[in-house]
């Protein structure tokens, strides 16, 4: 089967339009939306995590389940970011850098939980022991040392500076150097053990907390967000360009369609005229064949009138030249033949006719200036169609 160029154009055009339409809808939009949503989720959970570690350090949050949930949510958001960046090496690398920071944050949070639990445990026990020792015998020589240690420890719980830690260390040394009554020895040893632990643990825990809060996740997050936003903007701009191209292609196609429609209409009109003309010719021929000899002239006049009507001509004529020149003519009502016309036409026809004897001058005004134009214009013609048979 032979494929015409027009038929081959259709699938190509279909593919091109489909591709334009696909690119115009910004196919990556959902990917960027998912990535930004994951980043927002990460940010939200990180804020919650920071709030909760601070609350836990202050003793306001008394279980670590919220921290576990938040770390799980952070990991989940990271997983989504990683899945989302699977097809983009640069973005995947940025997610990996971000993940490394998040992993460090995860480690620090676990460290904080362990340290803070130990800290809260020792604080509880230190409070219990110091209260017990202070209340047991107010005249005991241990009371000033225990009270001083308690005061220094209280200071260290909210000010973990080196100076506060030194103060606790000094109080610890002072209490440890005292001679201990037998009945209080065990309690004092336990107090010293917990105080020693707290002396190390309080600054260490706050150090972990500071490191956790200062983890450069926001900087990496900002870098990643900027990268995604830039890609999103680029993707949107590309989609806009493709939408414009799609619009332009639509206009071109509309123009082509309008042109084809007009051509189709013109062709249909021409076919209709041709059919009408051929129908007329057939009718005239039939009438001429059926006419008797004395009717021939009348039939020719009638045929001329009908032919003139179909061409919207003002005048029509048939000239039979020979030994005796005969002519038939017809003109529209109110219009007359110019002088020596249509006989003059015979002479002019020899000048105008082409090799096939056909003359077609659609518009006299468009003829090049010259004698022919002047002659036709002088005869009052605006257009002229003539078939000569010599």
């Amino acid at each position, binding site marked *: 089967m032979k494929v015409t160029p027009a038929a081959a154009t259709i699938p190509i055009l279909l593919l091109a339009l489909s591709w334009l339409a696909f690119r115009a809808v910004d196919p990556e939009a959902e990917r960027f939306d998912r990535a930004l949503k994951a980043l927002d989720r990460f940010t939200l959970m990180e804020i919650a995590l920071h709030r909760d570690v601070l609350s836990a350090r202050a003793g306001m949050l008394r*279980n670590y389940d919220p921290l576990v949930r938040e770390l799980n949510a952070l990991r989940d958001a990271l997983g989504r970011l990683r899945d989302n960046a699977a097809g983009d090496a640069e973005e995947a690398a940025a997610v990996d850098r971000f993940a490394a920071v998040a992993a460090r944050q995860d480690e620090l949070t676990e460290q904080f*939980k362990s340290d803070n639990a130990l800290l*809260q445990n020792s604080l509880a026990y230190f409070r219990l022991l110091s209260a017990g020792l202070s209340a047991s015998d107010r005249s005991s020589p241990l009371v000033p040392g225990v009270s001083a240690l308690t005061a220094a420890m209280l200071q260290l719980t909210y000010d973990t500076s080196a100076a506060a830690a030194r103060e606790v260390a000094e109080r610890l040394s002072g209490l440890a150097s005292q001679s201990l009554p037998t009945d209080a020895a065990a309690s004092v040893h336990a107090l010293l053990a917990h105080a020693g632990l707290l002396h190390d643990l309080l600054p260490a825990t706050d150090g972990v907390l500071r490191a956790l809060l200062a983890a450069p996740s926001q900087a990496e997050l900002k870098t990643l967000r900027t990268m995604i936003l830039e890609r999103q903007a680029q993707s949107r701009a590309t989609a806009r360009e493709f939408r414009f191209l799609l619009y332009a292609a639509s206009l071109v196609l509309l123009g082509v369609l309008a042109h084809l429609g007009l051509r189709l209409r013109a062709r249909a009109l021409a076919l209709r005229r041709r059919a009408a003309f051929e129908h007329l010719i057939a009718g005239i021929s039939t009438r001429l064949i059926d006419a008797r000899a004395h009717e021939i002239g009348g039939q020719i006049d009638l045929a001329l009138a009908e032919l003139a009507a179909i061409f919207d001509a003002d005048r029509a004529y048939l000239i039979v030249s020979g030994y005796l020149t005969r002519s038939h003519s017809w003109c529209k009502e109110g219009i007359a033949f110019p002088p020596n016309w249509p006989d003059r036409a015979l002479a002019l026809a020899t000048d105008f006719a082409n090799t096939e004897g056909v003359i077609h001058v659609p518009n006299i005004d468009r003829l090049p200036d010259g004698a022919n134009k002047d002659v036709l214009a002088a005869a009052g013609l605006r257009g002229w169609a003539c078939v000569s048979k010599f």
Partner: protein
Amino acid sequence: MGLAALFDASGALKPLIHSVPLVAGCLALLFVIAVTVGAAPKSQIPSSRSPAAQEPITPIPPAPDTDPLKLALGERLFADPRLSHDGTLTYSSCHDVHSNGADSKRLRTARDGSVMTFNIPTVFNAALSFRLNWEGNVRTLEDQSESSLENAANLATNANEVLKKLDADPEMVRQFSQAYGGPPDRTSLLDAIATFERSLLTPGSRFDRWLSGDFVALSPEEQEGYQLFKSLGCVSCHQGVNIGGNLFERQGIFHPLASPPPEIVRVPSLRNVATTPPYFHDGSAPTLEEAVRRMGNAELDQTLSDAQIKAIVAFLDTLTGTYRGAPVTAASP
């Protein structure tokens, strides 16, 4: 749901209209069922007036809604000996869900005759822990299931070997197809087991009821034990919904606690602790009293009195929940 189903059927059951007393009786019965079913989980949700709102421990939530087909399949796999290389062991060999979700042995003997390093932790409420195992080196139940499959001392097999066995069983293939829309594969195998393990929650302990506002659920001695548990600092590590299981901690802070290593352990959950002797990662404490005494010494640097130990153990006894409506019990020796 019962009422809705009845009204849905009303078009086809027009003759029942004549049995008004019967319909009324059914409605009343359904109403009672609806109220009963609706009330059960509500009692577990702490209100702002219940102790749970202020306490560091929260009640166990209801088990998550899950696909019953996956759950049934997971339960079957949990007790299926084809999930071990030689067909002699199952997950339930070590984790008996009819008792305490573990076993009663101090340390199990491995296939090669050696003694395992760690005491078997209970599978009950494992889904509520942030990491699994004593070392806390596994994050998900799926990973833990596969680890147990591949552990030479445990099931000593692998997913591929198990899948070949399951593929040869048309009934098992049918169950997988119904639950997962296809024949068994590694993902669906591990998911089914994990789905079942996620359902192994033990709500309804007396302590949870107390947390939810049932103030007579604990005796004064048990409440005193809980106060001691908090004031001594035990609650610093054993807190949250699982009363532990949500952080790592050094074991033996002041004095040795149990056979090291590891130095750092995942803090174990105290849920159902009264039913899971022996204690510690080496199973070296045969009783709860012994475990509490040694914890006081190792982690608090304190010799707890018998009265303190008794009160704390009384509190710990209240942490025993229920599984499928029956209290969790200790495993048979």
